[in-house]
């Protein structure tokens, strides 16, 4: 038995030892390879850096000689260039020396974590450090302010200084109704201090808007320098506050207490955004870094800062892609790439998207890298998930206003147990009734729509905005851009916000302070804006009088002369141009290929088929006769900008024919000055109605038709889109509504 057991044990031991030996050998080889790699990297690193040091020691004297030589012969620019070369070499020397003494030996001994502080964290901290507490000599001083500190600059290239205004300035702010101002932040740009002209232009463009709301106290622009002054909001950035809150739970999400705090910050943000939007502005750069959490009389609260991108909701400028990735709506980028104008979209929806992204970042402690599809993995009430997703949904599907989102958020915040709140209970869901009934209704009548591109408007959404959410601005002067906020009484902000989501008194007070800086009874945003405008007009009048008293009448006389000369030259030129176009229209007749669309007829591209002159004349005679009795209105939307002269002439001739027949053609390119504001408003509405969709898509046809029905004033929309195959040709989309619209549409069909 023993003789049999012993060989078996030996065999077993061998069988066990072989795999063990193999594993040990593999690991030994791996270890050796690692050692060789480490030693190799160390040796080569040391040799390389030693040679680099020697190279620097050779290069620096040569460069220094060149610096001195250029100074001697007076070539200052060249001397500066070589001087920068010396500085670079010295920096290289320092880093090479660091690697020789610390970096490479530490890596050889696998002590990389020890050097991380020096190699990674230190440069990061240094890069984020505020600039010098005093402005450079080149930047100069700021009259009326004593600089007391500085803040880290943002991405715009501006330098930020904390300052105290002197007595005279404080008195001036008080007289302007801006309240007591103890400390301010001065954001300054200098062409020779890291700022570029486009940055300065962009920032200065937004300032008048911000000043109107009292967000900016004053600004000054000189040849090389530009600065503006804002109130100082002491506190931590929301990014840092969020990181601190998440650090408390070790990455397990926010605690219930912190969650409530975070939602409170979001409420403050929405409250402020609602005030901006009511004042006709949108912020455009809402992100955690631009939100400062600090204490004031009402307790802890979040304030929105940095007005560098703030924009009029009705600005005629083209949308830009400025903003911050992840917090900037990707659809805004698409629209900007398409050259859409600001007044053609609802800018407040982009702020709403950003507010949703900020809320996401607080919950997740990260960026919404997936846009609207971003996953929410941290514990959070389902209703809050819904609010975030609704805010970051598609342009047309998200909350129509900050107030609407605020109402939902407020509802969750007021609940004793936030996790018990269901989505169906949210105010924007009509307390569940509307959505549930709309969804269940499908079961009853068996209606099933197959929604793809070209889906009719969703039943569960409020109707597409015929600009109900945006404040109605009345343009007082087209050329100067002066406007007046109004129309809220006639068109209240929609839905739930008014019914349920009225901001809490504390929030409203905080908002008032944020906007006006004044004290006393809370005023509505509209009253504040009106008051600010009144004061601004009064200041403008006084400034104008001062200028007149200083410059005398001669300059104004000269201006009058110049104005008259322009009028005398330009008006005859315009008249001659119009006559030429009219003549050409009668000579050539219309030959534009197009697509005709009625609400019930799907769009199908029609190949352009130029008719003969004889046919055209016959058709037009019949058409014009039929149109004589029509009291219709046609809105022209021009998207095709690169049309050939011939195409332009043909298009104008068709519009001229319609005008002659008695149709009121509302065309921004060919209208009286006093009609332009109204036409601009209509264009903005109709463009917004289709959102980012192509004008030629079936969905757009439905939406324009819907807009026509809502509007009631316009009978036909004549959308001149460029031909997909040939950008020099027009390919109009025509949508008609009602009997009058149908008559005009039929006439247009025959004209073609």
């Amino acid at each position, binding site marked *: 038995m023993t003789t049999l057991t012993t060989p078996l044990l030996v065999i077993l031991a061998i069988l066990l030892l072989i795999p063990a030996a193999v594993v040990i050998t593999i690991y030994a080889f791996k270890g050796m390879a690692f050692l060789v790699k480490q030693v190799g990297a160390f040796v080569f690193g040391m040799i390389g850096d030693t040679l680099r040091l020697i190279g620097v020691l050779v290069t620096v004297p040569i460069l220094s000689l060149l610096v001195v030589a250029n100074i001697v012969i007076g070539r200052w620019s060249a001397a500066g260039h070589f001087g920068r070369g010396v500085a670079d070499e010295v920096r290289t020397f320092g880093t090479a020396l660091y690697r020789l003494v610390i970096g490479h030996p530490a890596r050889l001994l696998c002590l990389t974590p020890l050097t991380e502080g020096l190699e990674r964290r230190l440069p990061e901290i240094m890069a984020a450090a505020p600039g010098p507490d005093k402005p450079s000599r080149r930047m100069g001083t700021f009259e009326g302010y004593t600089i007391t500190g500085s803040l880290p600059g943002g991405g715009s290239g501006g330098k930020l200084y904390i300052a105290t205004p002197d007595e005279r300035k404080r008195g001036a702010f008080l007289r302007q109704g801006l309240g007591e101002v103890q400390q301010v932040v001065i954001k300054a740009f200098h062409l020779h201090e890291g700022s570029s002209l486009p940055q300065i232009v962009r920032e200065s463009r937004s300032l008048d808007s911000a000043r109107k709301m009292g967000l900016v106290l004053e600004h000054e622009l000189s040849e090389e320098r530009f600065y503006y002054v804002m109130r100082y909001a002491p506190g931590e950035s929301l990014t840092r506050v969020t990181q601190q809150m998440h650090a408390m739970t070790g990455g397990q999400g926010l605690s219930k207490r912190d969650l409530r705090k975070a939602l409170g910050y979001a409420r403050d943000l929405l409250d402020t955004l609602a005030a901006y939007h009511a004042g006709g502005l949108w912020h455009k750069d809402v992100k955690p870094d631009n939100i400062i959490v600090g204490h004031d009389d009402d307790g802890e609260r979040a304030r929105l800062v940095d007005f560098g991108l703030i924009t009029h909701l009705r600005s005629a400028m083209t949308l830009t892609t400025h903003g911050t990735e992840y917090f900037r709506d990707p659809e805004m980028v698409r629209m900007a790439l398409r050259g859409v104008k600001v007044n053609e979209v609802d800018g407040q929806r982009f702020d709403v998207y950003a507010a949703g992204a900020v809320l996401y970042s607080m919950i997740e402690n990260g960026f919404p890298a997936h846009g609207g599809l971003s996953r929410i993995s941290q514990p959070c009430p389902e209703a809050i998930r819904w609010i975030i997703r609704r805010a970051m949904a598609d342009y047309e599907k998200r909350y129509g206003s900050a107030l609407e989102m605020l109402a939902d958020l407020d509802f969750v915040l007021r609940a004793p147990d936030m996790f018990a709140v269901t989505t169906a209970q949210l105010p924007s869901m009509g307390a569940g009734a509307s959505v549930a009934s709309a*969804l269940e209704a499908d079961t009853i009548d068996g209606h099933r729509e197959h929604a793809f591109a070209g889906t009719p408007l*969703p039943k569960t959404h409020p109707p597409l905005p015929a600009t109900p959410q945006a404040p109605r601005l009345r343009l007082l002067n087209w050329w100067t851009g002066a406007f007046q906020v109004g129309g809220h009484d006639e068109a209240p902000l929609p839905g739930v916000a008014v019914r349920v989501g009225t901001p809490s008194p504390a929030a409203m007070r905080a908002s008032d302070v944020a906007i006006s800086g004044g004290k006393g009874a809370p005023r509505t945003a509209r009253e504040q804006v009106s008051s600010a405008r009144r004061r601004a007009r009064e200041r403008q009048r006084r400034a104008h009088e001062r200028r007149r008293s200083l410059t005398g009448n001669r300059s104004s006389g000269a201006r009058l002369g110049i104005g008259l000369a322009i009028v005398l030259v330009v008006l005859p030129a315009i008249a001659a141009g119009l006559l030429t176009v009219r003549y050409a229209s009668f000579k050539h007749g219309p030959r534009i290929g197009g697509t005709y669309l009625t609400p019930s007829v799907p769009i199908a591209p029609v190949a352009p088929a130029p008719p003969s002159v004889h046919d055209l004349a016959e058709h037009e005679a019949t058409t014009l006769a039929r149109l004589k009795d029509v009291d219709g209105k046609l809105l022209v939307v021009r998207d095709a900008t690169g049309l050939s002269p011939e195409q332009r002439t043909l298009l104008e001739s068709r519009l001229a024919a319609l005008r002659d027949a008695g149709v009121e053609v509302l065309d921004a390119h060919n209208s009286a000055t006093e009609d332009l504001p109204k036409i601009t408003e209509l264009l903005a509405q109709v463009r917004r109605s289709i959102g980012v969709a192509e004008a030629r898509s079936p969905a757009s046809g439905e939406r324009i038709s819907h807009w026509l029905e809502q509007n009631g004033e316009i009978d036909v929309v004549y959308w001149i889109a460029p031909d997909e195959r040939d950008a020099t040709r027009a390919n109009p989309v025509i949508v008609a509504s009602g009997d009058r619209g149908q008559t005009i549409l039929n006439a247009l069909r025959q004209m073609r």
Partner: protein
Amino acid sequence: MLNAVTTDFIGRLRSNDQAAWFELWETFGPVVRTQLMRWGKGRIGVETVRDLSQETLAALSDSIDRYDPSRGARFSTWLLAIAKHVLGDEIDRRMAQKRGSGKKAVALDERWATVPTSIGADAEYEAAVFRAKIEAALRAVEHEAEFVDFSIYRMRVLDGMSGRDVAAQLGVSEPTVSRRLAKIRDMVRLRARGMIQQFSFTDDELGEAARNGIDLNPTKADDDLFDEAIAEIYHRQAELRRKDEQAALDG
């Protein structure tokens, strides 16, 4: 062979349609960034990777006219080749600067100076490209569908909630949830097919749908498998995006 959808998309790129370029960037930007990070690990910083991924598309824009569909290259390989070319250019540029111009980068770690010799597409990259196509399909459906319908789909399939919980959240019945879910599922199915066609040059790429469980029959049994496959792809892609974002945070 190249299909009509792809040809149309390439045509849009060639005619410098900004929206098409943005679509390409939005869909494949993170994949390219991740790949560049893998290649340039320890050699180039995150900011450079972000710049390079943009340069990749710029280079793509330059080379689009020279693209020859008859060569039979995969879409993913084509994208990768250009990214590789851009990365190579960047490393060459840095080496050249280091040698002579006096404008050397001030990185403390110089390991990037070693040029990698073998850069090639691997299974991980190919899978990421495929997932990006499905993600683009989900995004398209999100764009087209009603918000409530897509939310039901998201809660049920992507978040893994039960039909009963979804119904309770929205205050509707379970059959309603099932019906809306089926509607969005059909849209996802159709859109996924469209996206795969748009961004595929070869038959092998077209066959990826079947290999990943996306090309199943619309039957009750297969619907569950389809949902599972979509959810897995979504979560993997979300993880890729999270890593991409984390890399940005870490600097």
